[in-house]
C-alpha cells in the first residue's frame, strides 16, 4: 500500500512522516515521532500501556490509526509534567506506584483523566477507573494510594 504523508500534532509539535494507513497511532508516536514513553503491550486494546490523550480524552494508541488522527491534538507522557500531572508523577515515585515502569505512562494518563473527571474518588472508584490498565508488578495498591494522595493534596490546595 502506498505510503501517505501524515502530519500529526503531538505534544504541540507537528510531526510529519510518510506512513502506510495501517500504522497505528502508537507505532507512529514511537517510531516516527521517536517518543518512546508510549509503550505497546498488547496491540489489541486491553492492556492500556499505549494510552495517550487524543483531543483531551484518553484513548488506546493501538486502536487508532495515525492517519485518522490528522487534525487531532495528541498528548503523550513526554508532555505530561508540563500540564497538571507533575504531582501525579511525583506521587507515583513517593508511593513506589511502579516497579518495572512499563505500564506507568499509560497508568498516569488514565489516572490524570480520572482526577479530572472525579476530583474526589473513592478507593474503589480509582480501582474501577484504572481497571483498563494492566500492571503485573505492583498489585495496584500503591497506584491507588498515589492517586488518592494526589486527590487529597489537590483538594487541600
Amino acid at each position: 500500500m502506498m505510503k501517505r504523508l501524515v502530519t500529526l500534532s503531538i505534544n504541540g509539535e507537528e510531526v510529519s512522516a510518510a506512513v502506510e494507513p495501517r500504522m497505528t497511532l502508537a507505532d507512529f508516536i514511537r517510531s516516527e515521532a521517536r517518543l518512546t514513553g508510549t509503550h505497546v503491550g498488547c496491540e489489541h486494546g486491553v492492556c492500556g500501556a499505549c494510552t495517550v490523550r487524543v483531543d483531551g480524552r484518553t484513548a488506546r494508541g493501538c486502536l487508532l490509526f495515525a492517519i485518522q488522527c490528522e487534525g487531532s491534538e495528541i498528548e503523550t507522557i513526554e508532555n505530561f509534567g508540563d500540564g497538571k500531572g507533575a504531582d501525579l508523577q511525583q506521587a507515583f515515585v513517593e508511593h513506589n506506584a511502579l516497579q518495572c515502569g512499563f505500564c506507568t505512562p499509560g497508568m498516569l494518563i488514565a489516572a490524570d483523566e480520572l482526577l479530572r473527571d472525579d476530583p474526589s474518588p473513592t478507593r474503589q472508584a480509582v480501582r474501577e477507573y484504572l481497571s483498563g490498565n494492566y500492571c503485573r508488578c505492583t498489585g495496584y495498591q500503591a497506584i491507588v494510594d498515589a492517586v488518592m494522595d494526589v486527590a487529597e493534596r489537590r483538594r487541600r490546595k
Partner: protein
Amino acid sequence: MTDLSGLDRPNSYIGRSVERPNAARLTRGRGRFVDDIDLPRMLHVAFARSPYAHALVKSVDTAGAAALAGVIRVVTMSDLAEYCTPWVGVLDHLKGIKSASQWPLANGKVFSQGEPVAAVVAASRAIAEDAVERIAIDYEALDPQVDPKASLAPDALPIHAELGDNLCFERKIDTGDVDEAFSTAAHVVEAEMRFNRHTGVTLEPRSIICDFDASQRALTLYMSVQCPHMSKNLFARHLNLDENNVRVICGDVGGSFGIKIHTYADEMTAAALAVMLERPVKFVADRLESFITDIHARDHEAKARLAVDGDGRITAFDLDDLTGIGPFSVYPRTSGIEVNQVLNLTGGPYAHGAYRAHGRVVFQNKNNMCQYRGVGHPIAVAIAEHLVDKAAKVTGQDPAEFRRRNFIADDAYPYTSPSGAIYERQSHRECLDKLLEKCAYDDLRAEQSALRRKGVYRGIGLVSLVEVTNPSPAFYGVGGARIASQDGCTLRLDPTGGVTCLTGVTEQGQGTETIIAQVAATAIGINMANIRVITGDTETVPYGGGTWASRAAGIGGEAALRAGKALKQNILSVAATILQDRAENLDIRDGVIVTAVDRTERMPLSELGRIVYFRGDTLPKDLAPELVVTRHYTQNTYPFCFTNAAHACYLEVDTDTGMIRLLGYWVVEDCGTVINPKLVAEQTRGGVVQGLGPALFEECIYSPEGQLMNGSLADYLVPMAGEMPDIVVDHVVTPTQTSELGAKGVGEAGTAGAPAAVMNALNDALGPFDVELTDMPFTPEKILRALGRVSGRDQK
C-alpha cells in the same frame, strides 16, 4: 559492635523506605526498553509458527514470502544449521532427567502449537508479518499428547521416540515410617488438587536486538532478560562464538517473573540471523506470540494425605504430584526443578516426622512449562495448607491453633526437614501471631459467624509457608549449568566524591538498584544521591547470576556490603596518610571523612578524590591508592536460605452467582534484614496479586487437540485493579547468619502463599455446604457446580 554492621550507623539507609532513584525517569517516559532502541540498518523478524500441537513438517515453500518487497531473507532450519547448534535441557543433579534436542526452527517436526518453523527478516515488522502469511507449509498432523496421565500410559506413543517414553523426570522421597504413621493415625485427611497452567504475561513482551560485527565476530545483544551472563554464555555456545566476544546489555526490563530467564527458539533464531546477515535484527514478541511461547507455569495434579495423631499433631505427609511440561525440558534450568521444589517444601513449616513424596514430570504437546515466580512453592504450600485446614477441622481445632501446635519448635533450629531441607531459623509462630493481630482474626471470625446467619458467606484462609532464597551452587551449578550463584559488586570512588557501583544482580523493577545503593552507601558512609548503580551490561558489571530465586538482595546485597566495607577501608587508609592520622581513628559520614569519636569533619571525599586522581604527586610514592574495589559473595553455609511468612485472606462468596469478592489480605513475612520496607511491602503485594491471579482468573485453556483457546489478553484474564484487595504487609525480622547483611530475599513469597490462602478462605466460606474446591482457578462455574446450583458438565 563492629563499626560497619550497617544497621546502627547514624547515616544508615538499611531499613529506610528511600525512593527509587530510577522511578522518576520511568514516570516521565524516559525508560529504555529494548523496543525503544533503533539501530542503523536494523531489520525485523517475524515467524511462521505451527498451528498444530504435533505434526511433521513435510515441506516449506518460502518463495512467495521471499519475493515480497521489503523482505531481506526467509529461512528455515536448514539455513540456520551452520549458524546454530541444538540444546538439551538436562542437569546432572536431577538424576535420570531426560529431554530431546531443541532447534531454533523446526527440524522436520513440531511438538507444540506456536513452535517457529520459518523466519522472515524484513524492513519492518509489518512487512515480515505480510511475508509470513505467504509461506506455505505442508504439515502432516500427528496425534497430540495433551493429558499428562495419558502421556504416561504404557501404550502412549513417546513424543520423542529416542527417549523411549514420556517421563521426563521422576523423584521419590520416603523418610520416617509413613505407613506406620498412617496406620496409627487418629485422623487421616486427603485431597486431590489441580493447579492450573498459567503464564507470566509480562507487560513488556520478550524482546531482543542482535547486532553482529563480523569484523570482530562480536555479537551484542540488547535483551530484556534476568540473567545477562547466563545469556552471554548460551548465545556464544550455540552460535559458535567466542564467549568473550558476546556482550549482553540489559536496560530497563518490563517485568520478568521467571519468563525472561530461559532459552527461546525465536530469540536464538534472531541472533543467528544477525550473524548470517551481519545486520542488526530485532525481535519483539507480540502478545499473541507471548501467550503461546513464553514459558507456562504450574500445570500440576496432586493427590496428598496427612496423618494426625490423637494429640492433634501432624505425623506424616504423603503426596503424589504429576506435572505436564510440554514437549521439552526447558534449557538450561530444566523443567524438573519445580517438582523438585514441591517435594522439598511441602509441609515445610511443620514438625512431622514421616514424609513420602512422589513427583513425576511428563512430556506433552503443549507449550513448554518452566520456572516462574515462586517455582513449586504455590503447589507445595497449597497441598500442605489445604490438608492442614482439613486436619484442623477434623480434630475440632481452630486452624490457627492447629498450625501453632504443629509448627517446628522454635528451639529446634537449625532444623532438617524430612525432605532434607535445612532451615536455619524460622519464625512461624511469631509471624502467625502477628498476622492474627493484624487481621483482627477474632473479629473476623465473629463477623463471619454473624453474617452467616444472614445468608452471607465469608471465609478466612490462613497459610504458613517457607520460601527458598539465596541459593548456593547446589541449585544449578552442581548440575553442570553455567548459572552463577555467586554475585559481585564493584565500587569506584570518583573524583567528585561520588561512587559508581556495578553489580551483577539485575533490575526488573523490584528495586535492585535502590537496595544495592542503600547497602553500598551505608557501608561506605556516603549519601544515596552520590551513588550511581549500573546493572545489566556484561561488558562492565561483575560476573553474576542476575535475578532469580529471590537472590538479588541476599547475594547481591552482601557483595555490595563487602565491597563497600573494603572501599571504605581503602579510602580511610589514603585519608590517614593525607591527614597524618590513623585509619582506625577516621570514619566516613555523609561523604565526609570525619574523626570517628566526635565526627569532626576532616576532609570531603571530593577532596580526597581530587588529590588521588589529579595530584598523586603529593602522595607518598609507595601509597598506591586503590579506590576501585570488587567483592563477591556466595552463600555456602546451607544449600538455600529460607524465608517464611503467614498469610490471611478474607473473602465473600455470592452463592447465587459463584462470584468471589476479595475483602482483605494480610501478610506477615520474615525476609531477614529489611533493607527497604516499602520495597519489601511492594514485592509482597505484587507477589500476592500474582498468586491471586491464577487462584481466581488465570488459566491457559487447551483444546483436546493441544490448541491454546484463550491466547489473548481479551480471553486470558489477568488480575486488574478493580478486583484486587488492599494488602496489609508487616514484618518479623530474623536475619540470616549466613551473611553479615542478614537479608534473605522477598521476591516470591507473596506468590507462594496467595493461591492457598484463597483456596482455604473459599472452603472456609462454603463450610456450611460441606463442599470442597481444590481445582484452580475458582470460577463461578466450579463454585456453582460444587454448590449444586447447576449440575454442570463433567469436570476435567
